[in-house]
């Protein structure tokens, strides 16, 4: 049971947190034919763009309403309209996803009202979806922007229907939190399909940001959840939400279309995956496939092999709530000790962590609490702290800009947990110190000496014949 505290500092030093609007924009990137648009000054977009390009190593669709100072003061109707018209003309998207920023929220732009007006003025754009999410920079964090955007997408594209409406028993909606990588989504798809079920992911970064070589590009997203898929989500049999942050979206979908949901607050570790697999077996009416039974066996074996290296290790973790909870719980289950836990925003899962205090803070807080730890786990910005502390860094979460393969890092499923055990376990093994003659020697001050050194006599030996 952890206590959740917020840092008392006025100044954030080495931020862990990233802003809400770009969390929202990333969710839009998991929608097919979408152009995310930040309503703010062009820097808001350019920073987000660079961040995602460096993380995914992909071209990123992200536009800006390019608010100038004057436009900001006068209100952004013209800019929003011009942006929508320009994007519609140049990129021909199926959906434009708009997130507000700090500037336009401070002014109090009524973007919903703007969109109504723009709809009236531009009937030629009727076929195009326009979704708006309010995501001020000065509130909440990246994860919150993702959460709100997914809920908005459901409101926009899933038609209302009765709970008693006919449902396709084989169809399952999956609402992944922003802590799941494109690789994680592929893994979940594999697991769910193994039961003959048809999963529909929203958002689906595995289609858009998994690093495939497309035959052709549109300037918008390519791959991701299509509007048809979203429209059909209301008639699925179940919704699986992954991460506490997806509760809002899952509830929204349940209220709109009566789709019951089950929420897995994490899918890292043996027990939560057993629950998932048992659930899938139950709703599909099929036995657990051999493939998954073997994967489970491999994970159990990895836990046995790995526990020697995890036991008693001290780990300092900095991540957004759902990722922190998934990784922190798994570390504890492997016998490691959470030395520090820093996060970005409030969440009910935080108090479930096995640590005295979880701090909503920054990487300076993490660095101060990570002295003497065996491992640091946070995003790439932890590299400076890692260097200063001499503690190795496992790059966890976004952004990961100084290593390859961020989009394919796995933390979910039996296989994902297994590979995590091997990667992290190997980092512990790599640090093992070779003993030398002085390893166990105590320093003179600590030891009461009984003499011996002084009375030692040198005996001259004569060579033996």
């Amino acid at each position, binding site marked *: 049971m952890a206590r959740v505290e917020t840092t008392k*500092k*006025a*100044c*954030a*030093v*080495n*931020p862990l*947190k*990233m*802003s809400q609007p770009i969390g929202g924009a990333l969710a839009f990137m998991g929608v097919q034919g979408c152009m995310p*648009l930040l309503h*703010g*000054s*062009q*820097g*808001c977009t*350019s*920073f*987000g763009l*660079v*961040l995602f*390009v*460096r993380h995914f*190593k*992909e*071209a990123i669709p992200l*536009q*800006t*309403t*390019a*608010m*100038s*100072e004057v*436009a*900001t003061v006068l209100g952004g109707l013209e*800019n*929003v309209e*011009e*942006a*929508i018209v*320009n*994007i519609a003309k*140049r990129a021909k998207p199926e959906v434009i996803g708009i997130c507000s920023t*700090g*500037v336009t929220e*401070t002014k109090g732009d009524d973007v919903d009202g703007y969109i109504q007006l723009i709809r009236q003025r531009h009937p030629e754009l009727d076929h195009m979806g326009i979704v708006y999410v309010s995501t*001020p*920079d*000065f*509130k909440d*964090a990246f994860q919150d922007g993702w959460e709100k955007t997914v809920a908005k997408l459901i409101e926009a594209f899933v038609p209302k229907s009765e709970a008693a409406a006919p449902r396709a028993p084989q169809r399952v909606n999956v609402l992944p939190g922003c802590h799941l990588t494109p690789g994680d989504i592929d893994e979940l798809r594999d697991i769910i399909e193994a039961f003959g079920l048809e999963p529909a992911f929203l958002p689906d970064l595995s289609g858009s940001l998994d690093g495939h*070589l497309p*035959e*052709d*590009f*549109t*300037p918008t997203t390519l791959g991701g959840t299509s509007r048809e898929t979203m429209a059909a989500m209301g008639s699925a049999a179940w919704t699986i939400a992954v991460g506490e942050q997806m509760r809002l979206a899952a509830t929204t979908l349940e209220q709109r279309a009566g789709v019951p949901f089950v929420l897995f607050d994490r899918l890292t570790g043996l027990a939560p995956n057993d629950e998932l697999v048992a659930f899938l077996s139950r709703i599909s009416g099929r036995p657990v496939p051999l493939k998954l039974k073997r994967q489970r066996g491999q994970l159990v074996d990895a836990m046995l092999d790995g526990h020697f290296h995890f036991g008693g290790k001290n780990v300092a973790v900095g991540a957004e709530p759902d990722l922190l909870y998934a990784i922190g719980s798994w570390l504890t289950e492997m016998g490691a000790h959470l030395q520090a836990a820093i996060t970005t925003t409030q969440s009910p899962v935080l108090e479930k962590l096995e640590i005295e205090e979880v701090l909503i803070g920054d990487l300076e807080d993490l660095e101060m609490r990570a002295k003497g730890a065996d491992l640091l786990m946070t995003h790439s*910005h932890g590299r*400076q702290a890692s260097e200063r502390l001499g503690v190795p860094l496992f790059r966890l979460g976004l952004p990961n*800009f100084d290593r390859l393969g961020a989009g394919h890092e796995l933390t979910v499923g039996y296989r994902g947990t297994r590979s995590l055990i091997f990667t992290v376990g190997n980092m512990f093994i790599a640090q093992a110190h070779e003993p030398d003659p002085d390893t166990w020697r105590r320093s003179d001050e600590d030891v009461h000496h009984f003499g011996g050194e002084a009375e030692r006599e040198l005996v001259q030996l004569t060579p033996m014949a």
Partner: protein
Amino acid sequence: MSSVAAKIQDVFNEPGCDKNKGKSEKERKKGCTKQLAPGAAAGGCAFDGAKIALQPITDVAHLVHGPIACEGNSWDNRGAKTSGSSLYRTGFTTDISETDVVFGGEKRLYKSIKEIIDKYNPPAVFVYQTCVPAMIGDDIDAVCKAASKKFDKPVIPINSPGFVGPKNLGNKLAGEAILDHVIGTEEPEYTTPYDINIIGEYNLAGELWQVKPLLDELGIRILSCISGDAKYKEVAYSHRAKASMMVCSKAMINVARKMEERYDIPFFEGSFYGIGDMSDSLREIARLLIERGAPEELKDRTEALIAREEARAWARIAPYKERLTGKKVLLITGGVKSWSVVAALQEAGMELVGTSVKKSTKEDKERIKELMGQDAHMIDDMTPREMFKMLRDAQADIMLSGGRSQFIALKAKMPWLDINQERHHAYAGYEGMVELVHEIDKALSNPVWEQVRRPPPWQEKTWEERANEAIAAEAAALAADPVKAEAARREKRVCKCHNVNVGQIEDAIRDSKPTSVDAIGEATHAGTGCGGCRDTLETMLEAANASGAVPASLAA
């Protein structure tokens, strides 16, 4: 904000800037209110520009006053290197909350400054203003002044909120801030006749250190580099230099010019990119120093060093010739740096495609600059198929461009080399050019290209074949339908900054009969952004005037 507005006017009136001089009075005035095209814009904001310009000062705490987006999404993401303190890589931000927006963020800012001084005790704190606190009226000048007095330490306000304009405006506003508050506030321990400033060099990937050994050898001291690998005090006493070099980009021309005006420090505009440019820069430095009283013999020593270094560089590039001769390079960048590498590429036997330049005379360079400036914009919204078509038509073997087009180039399975700000390799000076040729050779000779281009055995038609077919089909469709072809021709964008197409410009020429490119700009905004399309506009205007009237084909 009135002081910021005045500063912006001042910066827009910069007499040292050629581009600015080329603008009409009215256009210059418009500078600060000029609208970027919503939904079609790219690039950083003024805050970004200010941070780029000053963050390389290594021992300063750079504090960003704003919501988390401004610093949280972007900190420690540039490659400026340090030989000393690494405090500049620490991200400091007030991370203002909703409460601050309602009640004002000045208190939090003041407390933040105090915390930083207590914990890190830097020689100075730079406070960057951003949009939200600027809107709610946080007076950072007043807070900085109070904090400076209270803590007896320079606390410098950098007034460059994002929404006042683009990145390059931010560069200049940052320059104004150090002119107002930093330069001339301290004195060096001693001076020499060989003291120079280098202005506008950020030591990305350590490029300054490719040049510094040569200056050291000549006994020339970099009194202050603004701002690569600089210490606060070095910038503060930079007014004691004998001469300045302003590194090619015009980012900080106002600093160079005002230091000339205020402190009699003459400057020249030069570049460390390219063998010829490097030599020219060394000569200019020597010339200015001698003018300012350094002994004449510096000239001969400089020439001797140049001869030695050039010979060595060419000799090191020569071995690559065998493999690189005849290879075609497509050079695309918005920066002004790349044209200076042309000579080195040519020396290594490579050909440049996309331009008709043989050897780089000054005029040719200007031409390349224009051409590349335009294409850099274009490439941002290219699809891989269009990219493929461009590379096919140009028959290029490798593309050199900025980072944003990287993944499009790579997806088109095209060897690619990064020559923009985020690059990891240093390409300055004689060393840098050899490195560049080496990198191109590495990229071109890598065996992956052959493998990744090979289609899977089960695929009947390759990606390229299908792209070729699609391109041919589109061309055929247009040829068959003159109305559509005309529409497509008129749709072609000329001004990328303001999203103005051929049709709009032709209509304007027909309707309002403009007599100059500026007049076209007044009517359509075309050519008033980066200026990259002004040549095209000129040509269109000439064509229209030559024919006496707008051709019938365009009147439709």
